């Protein structure tokens, strides 16, 4: 029988939405319910949120002051200890999960699977390789715990609710002191989360600078969309790294993606290929994104974007 543990990603106050997608992906493998581990300094509110997600059978709360802020080396020792009770230990394929899961696996002498996009059976998974240009079907050794990260955009979050018990747990595990948190610098921008937004507006090199960035921010605000950036826009210093969309940034799968002045390097297209509708606004008809998009408007973004915002405003007014 499979026993599935999902490691909750959170900031000690709120559960990260990606955790829900992982639970949604795994519930089919856990008829008796998915266990969710909440490692935190306090974590009661996070545990309560987790207990309400459909498909969750039990929440295990490991409260220790060392657990906040999250350090992979500190969490991995505890996750590895918990893992002995499970056939599957999973986390979202975010920078959090990618940092944590392989280290926890190593502590149990195991390897891990990265970025699962489909589950064909308890030990049969699919995952992208070569920047998403190929998908491999992989069978894991059923004799060992499967450690894996799950791509959140490939699975839906549970729509139903549960009322799972919360169990406070103490593990007698020595935690390493060799890694220390110094600080976190974020943009703290408001608006929808890039990885779960239904509409995403991404700006590229064509933005040319802050004036172009302001244009797409205006468009995103009008659409209720999240703002993203191509690598070129981040490298130029116009937009922060956490907004980068693509193979090495965030993978997005919104219903609508608008690429504004984005050339569409393969590494970027990899990050958007699961979007519902891809729209490209670019003055260069030969840009790679124009071949990949569902709808292409060849136009100067500095006239097309204000015109688009104007049309949307007028619709709203009528």
């Amino acid at each position, binding site marked *: 029988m499979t026993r599935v543990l999902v490691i909750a990603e959170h900031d000690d106050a709120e559960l990260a939405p990606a955790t829900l997608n992982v639970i949604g992906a795994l519930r089919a493998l856990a008829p008796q319910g998915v266990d969710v581990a909440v490692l935190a300094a306090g974590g009661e509110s996070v545990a309560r949120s987790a207990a309400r997600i459909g498909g969750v059978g039990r929440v295990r709360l490991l409260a220790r002051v060392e657990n906040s802020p999250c350090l992979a080396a500190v969490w991995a020792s505890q996750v590895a200890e918990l893992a002995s009770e499970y056939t599957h230990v999973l986390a979202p394929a975010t920078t959090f999960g990618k940092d944590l899961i392989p280290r926890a696996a190593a502590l149990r002498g195991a390897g891990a699977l990265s970025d699962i996009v489909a589950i064909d059976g308890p030990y049969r998974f699919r995952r992208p390789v070569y920047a998403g240009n190929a998908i491999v079907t992989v069978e894991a050794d059923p004799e060992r715990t499967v450690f894996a990260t799950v791509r959140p955009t490939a699975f839906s979050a549970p729509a139903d609710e549960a009322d799972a018990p919360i169990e406070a747990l103490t593990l007698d595990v020595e935690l390493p002191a060799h890694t220390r948190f110094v600080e*976190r610098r974020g943009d703290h921008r408001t608006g929808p989360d890039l990885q779960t937004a239904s509409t995403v507006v991404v700006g590229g090199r064509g933005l040319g600078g802050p004036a172009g960035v302001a244009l797409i921010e205006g468009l995103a605000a009008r659409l209720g969309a999240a703002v993203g950036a191509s690598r070129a826009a981040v490298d130029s210093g116009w937009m922060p790294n956490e907004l980068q969309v693509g193979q090495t940034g965030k993978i997005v799968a919104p219903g609508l993606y608008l690429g504004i002045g984005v050339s569409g390097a393969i590494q970027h297209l990899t990050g958007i290929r699961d979007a519902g509708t891809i729209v490209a606004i670019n003055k260069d008809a030969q840009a790679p994104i124009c071949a990949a998009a569902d709808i292409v408007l060849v136009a100067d973004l500095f006239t097309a974007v204000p015109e688009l915002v104007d049309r949307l405003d007028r619709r709203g007014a009528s």
Partner: protein
Amino acid sequence: MRRILVGLKRVIDHGVRVHLRPDGSGVVTDGVKMSLNPFCEIALEEALRIREASRADEVVAVSLGPAEVEQQLRQALAMGADRAIRIEAEGALEPLTVARSLLAVAEREQPFLILLGKQAIDSDNNQTGQILAGLWGRPQATFASEIRLGESTVTVAREIDQGIEVLELDLPAVVTADLRLNEPRYVKLPQLLKAKKLPIETLTLTGLGIEPESQFRVIETTPPPSRTAGIRVESVDELVAILDERGLIP
């Protein structure tokens, strides 16, 4: 001797469009241009800069694979690595096997820092550094965009989903390189020619006491779902009309 160990992987060049074998057995590699994995190249560049700033005495490049891997090790020597080690191995290796091998080399070389790329652009695993740090029982900092060395610590800025996170690690430690850590230098032809004559030490997995294992069996390799061909609109009005029809805009 203050030594940095850098792990390198030979991969299909990032500019090559990969083609799948029709029988689902993998990607076509015959006659395809091979290169140093870009993230590994960034890791090596960082190690060289640390040595050039006199914070390290020696940079040792290590790779696993058949004899062809020596091309990439020679590139590393041409860039400025002091020594190169190839661990003889055939076929696709899982990150756990690679990490165990690197650990065996680390136990011999006693580096104060191990630098790796955050992931290889072929298997896209993003695991080896984390597994290595776990097996070694030492700190890890993945997705590094800035590295500052202290006497007995290293401070690393990491590119995470929420922004930048800064960690301080006790040495020795494992750090994996992200894109914005640096821009690797160009290698000039005379350096490449000179590197051709330099020795490369060869080790074996057996010699290191490593039994390659396969926990994950690849059943088949298939193309990703394809998208239908797009359309071209001539005006913003036309774009708005289509998005409206599809119910995609407010």
